[in-house]
């Protein structure tokens, strides 16, 4: 498919309205991501890097409105519970990593994806795998008797097949962001069967991220996904259960690109050094992800305090021992104080090591 056949994009500088919404383009000078936001959101934190602030900026995008949208499904109460549960997993956490602060900073965002329709015309060849069953057995010898246990095992017979294909595929999902794969791993993907036609009133106050993978850049991925869909159907047509070495020489006709919007909530917190870290919540499923850093600084403080208490208890314990000849019960007290001092000493070590160990797993 020649590049000239791909849909065109336009530079949008400033508009009163786009896609039926009173939004305008804005970008983050730090991460260079571009959004369509309400005018009131200009100057607020960038939902991508959560460090820079959004400034008015021209955007390169398609003027046609998106075709489909996955609506936000998670209520505020559910979000509170999700965040509470998420932060509870971090024992010594920064003060900023608390559910209420995260909830107050929540930003609804719609990530872009592409939906590609197209006619695949071409020739294919592959090795198709057909299941068949073989009988095997296990022989058990016990108390002078043989017992046979028969087992049926399923194996795959691979056979070559070839053929032609003229099939149309609709709404094949294609990433609209370079970071699509990484972000989907964090939020766990979306159920594509719960998709609605785009309606401007469904956007609410969400910011719309502008695709940084335009159709010309996303075409290889679109082609691969169309080929994958064709491969699945060729397997089905051949009556096979498995396929390998699928090879398709195809041309793609009547390719149509539309946009799909994926709902996420983004919030953030600051770590010990004041650096902001984003947390993502899938707006459809509630899956939450992002780095949860523990507070090493708090760990040191806890360690210092508990070490001081430990030394004090230890010294008091020794003094109690020293006073034992005068008052015998002080010996018992001395043992208790020394043990408590040792316990506090161990706690101080844990308070230092745990944040370090936890953060290693997060980075």
């Amino acid at each position, binding site marked *: 498919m020649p590049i000239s056949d791909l849909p065109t994009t336009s530079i949008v500088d400033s508009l009163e309205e786009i896609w039926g919404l009173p939004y305008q383009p804005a970008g983050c000078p730090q991460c260079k991501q571009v959004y369509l936001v309400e005018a009131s959101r200009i100057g607020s934190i960038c939902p991508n890097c959560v460090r820079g602030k959004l400034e008015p900026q021209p955007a390169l995008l398609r003027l046609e409105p998106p075709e489909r949208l996955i609506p936000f499904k998670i209520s505020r109460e559910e979000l509170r519970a999700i965040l509470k549960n998420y932060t509870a997993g971090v024992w010594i956490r920064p003060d900023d990593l608390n559910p209420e602060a995260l909830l107050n900073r929540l930003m609804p965002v719609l990530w872009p994806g592409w939906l590609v329709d197209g006619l695949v*015309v*071409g*020739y294919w*060849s592959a090795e198709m795998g057909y299941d*068949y*069953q*073989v*009988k*095997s*057995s*296990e*022989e*058990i*010898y*016990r*108390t002078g008797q*043989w017992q*046979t246990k028969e087992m*049926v095992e399923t*194996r795959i017979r691979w*056979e*070559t*097949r*070839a*053929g*032609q*294909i*003229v*099939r149309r595929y609709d709404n094949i999902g294609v990433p609209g962001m370079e970071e699509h794969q990484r972000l989907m791993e964090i939020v766990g993907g979306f159920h594509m069967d719960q998709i609605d036609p785009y309606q401007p009133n469904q956007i609410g106050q969400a910011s719309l991220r502008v695709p940084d993978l335009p159709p010309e850049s996303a075409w290889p991925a679109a082609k691969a996904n169309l080929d994958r869909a064709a491969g699945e*159907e*060729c397997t*089905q*047509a*051949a*009556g096979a259960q498995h396929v390998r070495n699928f090879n398709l020489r195809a*041309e793609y006709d009547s390719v149509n690109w539309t946009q799909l919007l994926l709902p996420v909530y983004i919030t953030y917190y600051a770590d010990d050094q004041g650096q902001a870290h984003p947390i993502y919540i899938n707006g459809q499923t509630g899956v939450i992800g992002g780095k949860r850093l523990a507070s090493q600084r708090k760990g040191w403080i806890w360690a210092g305090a508990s070490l001081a208490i430990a030394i004090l208890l230890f010294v008091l314990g020794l003094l109690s021992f020293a006073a034992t000849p005068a008052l015998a019960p002080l010996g018992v007290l001395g043992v208790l104080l020394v043990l408590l001092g040792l316990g506090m000493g161990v706690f101080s070590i844990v308070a230092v090591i745990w944040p370090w160990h936890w953060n290693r797993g997060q980075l």
Partner: protein
Amino acid sequence: MALTHPRLSTWQPPPEYQPVPSLLEGITVFAPQPVKPTDDQIISYKCPQCGATTRFDVAAGGVACEYCGYQVGIEAKQVGRRAQEFEFTLETLEDSAQGWGISRNELHCNSCGANLTLPEGALTISCPFCASNQVNVHPAPSDVLRPRFLVPFTVVIETVRLKAQEWLGKGWFHPPELSASAVVDRFHGIYLPYWTFDAYISADWKAQVGHERQERYYDSGDKTWKTRTVIDWRWEDGRIALDADDLLVPGSTRVSHILLERLLPFKLDELTPYNPDFLAGWEAQAYDIDLPSAWESGKSIMREQAKQSCYDDIHSSHVRNFSMKADFSNEVWRYILLPVYLASYRFEDKIFQVMVNGQTGTVAGQKPVAWWKIWLAIAALLTPGLLLGLVSLPFLLAGGIGALPLFLAFILLLIGGGISVALYKQTTASEAA
């Protein structure tokens, strides 16, 4: 079948591919043409020179006409143990159980037009009216269940006769007049059905194993220290692996399995792809022991071999509470034909069977036994012990030196008895079939 679209006009399916049904509109499917099964057509053998009947000639190693001397070689390359093997698919097991030749029990002779009744399970027939040799007279229930490989006859009939006569004269416990009066002459060669089985067996065993230990103890009767052997029992376990390769199991109930066992081994390195030419003019039998039944026999042999391997793995002769679990994997089979000459002879109004391995010339068969020789031999074996015992008894009663001779007599009786039993078994086996 082909799709119509301007961009598909130049496409051609790969060579030797054929269209197969597609389950989706808009997609065509082509598959390689299936390998043509071995020709299931009945083949008549006639000499192209003189029109007489031709047959496979062992000496010539090809199809020959005994009237005009016409000969033609057979294009068949030995594949040996590399011959294709098949898995135990549920489909094949079901097909195998259907048996052979159910669908055809009458045959129209291609040569003279006579209608022949086929013997059950026969793969070949010679027309009694025109003497033409016909092969592939019964269809297989499925392609994998036709004989794919065989070992051709390599021993000529004259050698077979000589070997059989020589075999008749062997052995002292047979009637002396056997080789002189009995004639084994009417041998007929037949390809017998066999199954070969391979499997990899991994077996875990567990048993109480006894370890001998010398122990000193005080005998209060003798008031001395003595040494005795005691056995310490310990639970032990282990694992063995056994690679069973080309285990042969007969596929026919029509011949004695005892005699077939004695014909072994066959050299399977000489396995050759099935070619009906090898069967021209020779009898050939299809299996009547189906694959599942034969595999049950094969498996029971393999599991006993695995059990023996487990016992070999135990470094003690004292074993109790033995148990094992054998996992079979990579089980495969072949259906082959092996060459055997069959004959019978009459001696003193009794019929005895003889078989000769058509590949190696090994002879096996039933032979009459001169029982008077056996009883005489047994008496001779037992007499020394009995006599010595009888002689030593009075000495023992007299309180003399009788104990030692009596002990010797007992030992001699034991040895004589053991040899007698072995001799009796050997002679009864000689008559058995």
